[in-house]
């Protein structure tokens, strides 16, 4: 058989938010006219879908619809600090800040309506653009409620800051509390290795990742799928080559990236182990999703053809060379045994 299959697995852990420093993020929220809402925060949408996640959180917490949430994003002269887009931190840090600010804005509105309706604030419910008091006939739209609040001199706004309880590392033994939220995960890879060309195809990945709480499961899958394919690129083909400080791979003709034809089917398994510290239970997934992929693939290559790749990337040339060396070694040992 020229093509051999194998499987491998690997596990990972990861810390969420900035490492070994105190992280922080803030948000301003307003329940606006017509039952819409405004969220302003120094968030950076880099493609992961954080704006939609924040809209979902604000809608859920205040009782409006996500499509009626307007987000004012990162502008240092217009939005409160929410720090950077990295460290798998935005859902955790900014999501929690938006949740807390949304709760404050909602409370401002509910407190007015409790007086208007003469009910206990705790009996008031808000959901998907409507507000009502339990066991009464009081039931109006959020737009009407905001109008009522404003006519009584109250603009329902809220603001919040979310920070972490973390420390730096000791310079001698490294002890410290770098994060307050950790995630764990593991992946299985199935590969096919062509023993004539050395080419490795990754046919399937099963990826189980704890994200705390998935705000948008499709978005979580998108992060897992994208992370895995970036790791596959580093594992099998990508190589920024330098010679005496000059690169020979300064364009996409020479710097090889995974295309539609290179990617495995990814089967995501989302684990939800809620973070006990933040108000939402969310954690993060952007980076951990790519951590176990490479060793899972390398372990699968070993399973398929018995060669251990310890220097990335596992290009066809490298895999083929390793297979030949292994075959020669085995032939040599067999000859020695026969003597």
């Amino acid at each position, binding site marked *: 058989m020229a093509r051999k*299959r194998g*499987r491998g697995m690997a596990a990972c852990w990861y810390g969420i938010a900035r490492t070994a420093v105190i992280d922080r993020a803030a948000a301003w929220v307003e329940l606006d006219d017509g039952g819409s809402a405004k969220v302003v925060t120094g968030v950076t949408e880099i493609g992961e879908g954080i704006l939609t996640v924040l809209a979902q959180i604000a809608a859920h917490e205040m009782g409006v619809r996500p499509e009626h949430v307007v987000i004012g994003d990162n502008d*240092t*002269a217009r939005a409160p600090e929410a720090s950077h887009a990295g*460290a798998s931190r935005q859902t955790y840090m900014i999501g929690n800040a938006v949740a807390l600010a949304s709760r404050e804005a909602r409370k401002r509105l509910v407190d007015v309506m409790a007086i208007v309706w003469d009910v206990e604030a705790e009996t008031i419910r808000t959901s998907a653009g409507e507000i009502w008091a339990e066991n009464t006939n009081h039931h109006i739209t959020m737009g009407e409620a905001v109008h009522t609040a404003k006519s009584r001199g109250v603009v329902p706004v809220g603001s919040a800051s979310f920070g972490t309880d973390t420390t730096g590392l000791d310079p001698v033994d490294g002890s410290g509390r770098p994060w307050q939220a950790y995630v764990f995960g593991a992946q299985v890879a199935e590969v096919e290795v062509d023993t004539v060309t050395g080419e490795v195809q990754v046919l*399937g990945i099963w990826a189980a990742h704890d994200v705390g709480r998935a705000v*948008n499961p499709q978005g979580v899958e998108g992060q897992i799928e994208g992370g*895995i394919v970036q790791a596959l690129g580093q594992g099998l083909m990508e190589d920024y080559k330098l010679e005496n400080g000059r690169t020979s791979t300064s364009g996409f003709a020479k710097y090889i990236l995974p295309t539609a034809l290179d990617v495995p089917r990814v089967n995501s398994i989302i684990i939800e182990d809620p973070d006990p510290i933040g108000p939402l239970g969310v954690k993060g997934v952007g980076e951990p999703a790519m951590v176990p992929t490479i060793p899972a693939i390398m372990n699968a290559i070993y399973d*398929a053809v018995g060669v251990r790749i310890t220097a*990335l990337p596992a290009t066809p040339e490298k895999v083929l060379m390793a297979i030949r060396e292994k075959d020669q070694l085995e032939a040599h040992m067999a000859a020695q045994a026969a003597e």
Partner: protein
Amino acid sequence: MPDLQFKATINGRKISRAAKPHQRLLDFVRDDLNLTGNKEGCGAGECGTCSVFVNGVLMKSCLLPIAKAHNTTIETVEALAKTGELSVLQQAFHKAGASQCGYCIPGMVMAATAALRANPFADREEIKERLGGNICRCTGYQKIFDAVELARDVQNGSLPATVLFEDEVAQGDFIGKNVRRIDTPGKVSGRLKYAGDMTMPGMLHVQVLRSPHPHARIASIDISAAEAMEGVEGVITCADVPGEDGFGVFVNDQPIMARGKVRYVGEAVAAVAAESPLIVKRALAAIKVIYEPLPAVFDPDEALCPGAPILHDYAPDNITKHIPIRVGDVDKGFAESDLVMEETYTTQAIEHAYLEPEAGLAYVDQDGVVTIVSPDQNVTHHRHMLARIIAKPISKVRFIMSPVGGGFGGKEDMIYQGMLALLAMKTQRAVRLVFTREESIISTAKRHPSRTVLRMGLKRDGHIHALQMKMICDGGAYGLSTEGVMRKAAILAAGPYVIPNVRIDTFGIYTNNTPSGAFRSFGALQTAFATESHLDMCAERLGLDPFRIRRINAMRDGAVTHTKARLGSVSLMRSLDALEKASGWESGAPTSRGDRRRDLNRNDIRPPCTLGARFVEAEKPEAAE
């Protein structure tokens, strides 16, 4: 070359304009017609984000001289949702979650439209082949395939159009639901403007002169000829920095433009703002820099040797950062182990390859606020640094984040925003800089290449008793995020396992290579490759299943980490259990048993791909596209 009176029908409108015959179709539609939906990703026909239809055929507009498109019918991505209503395919991208940063998406939508026009019944494998010329760096492609399949089924009538609608969400419970992304319609239609798509009245064009040397003293820079050229409005070097120069993420060791010496090939030396890109190019060529080459070092191990060239005076040993972690007594731990294995692992530098090359605009507003618009992953920190560098109060510096066409850590460094600010201040006009792909690759951070020596001692029952790891990383010419990468690599190096004796050292080293910096997973990828490969090698020697050896050592609730932090709930065992079940894993020691396994080739993998096999079989004319 005389101008061409270029005539074509573009998105249903007849146009007739003077154009240079060698002008690329991409530049014509973007710059002359302001149709910026299709993007430039590579300028070399490799990424597909510039894809348009010419007489109905999918073409990469970055490779097409406009003369070749004379008298044709051209459709850009703007043609697909001309009245504002998304096409079925665009709606399917929205529903399936197929767009992330969105920069590749206009080209991807064009390629997918072409695929379904060629074969309305194309199966998933054929769709993949037809999208093979379009690169996406965010999604992993899977949801793009899902979207094209969904659109195919709606278009050919096998599914109702209602499948494209938003899922119903009961009781306002919007957390945990697949709410469609609020930014997707703007991305699939090409309406969203990235920094390189934006213009301002009176805007000047900026380009950067870069170092051809890996290490050299700058004897002199003469900008007088460039400054004297007509149409040149500003030329800057490090001499134009009014404040305290130096940026970085952890150590501010990099000047906005080279100061005194250059430390890597591609480092910025000077920048020009002028009325047109052509004038900028000529002005850059007129800047005279005299370099005196210095001995350079390209290998981190050599950089550590006595007598090696020194990059930065503050770090005479060339060490950017060393992070140690110590638990127990590893020497005693190895002595008490039944199995001790050592191996060396290396990883290479890789490029972020976000589809959007760096771009930005800057201007000084009516209140004297220096304003930078760019796809920037850390505007808060950059505002702070830039204020110091240009000697202004923080309130007079404003960063506005433009839509980020992929980042992955590569846009955390303030690598060009300082030059934009200085040129806006010098010219008092709006300025714009758009990197070429080559410029983006040579001048911005890479993932740290690493060499890791890992030694692990285990008890016969599979318990890891001691772990020692030394990782040397090439940090390149400047610090950027190296310190943080070394720290995260070290903290996570030993994996989520309880190990009584641990000695970890990670080193980031200065060399004259392209700087290394932040890259998604930030050091954990390098160390996990070593630790998780090593665990399988040990499992083979001990006759243990890979899941089993990890469970034996797994941190449980309340575990104490290698930095002596106590954890709360630990979801590792849950993850392993769920993964083993979902993958149908067949238990056994990792003895290279692929040919005996019975858990392979299930229906939840993709078929292997043999390029071109389908088209040889089909021999359809459109297959040649």
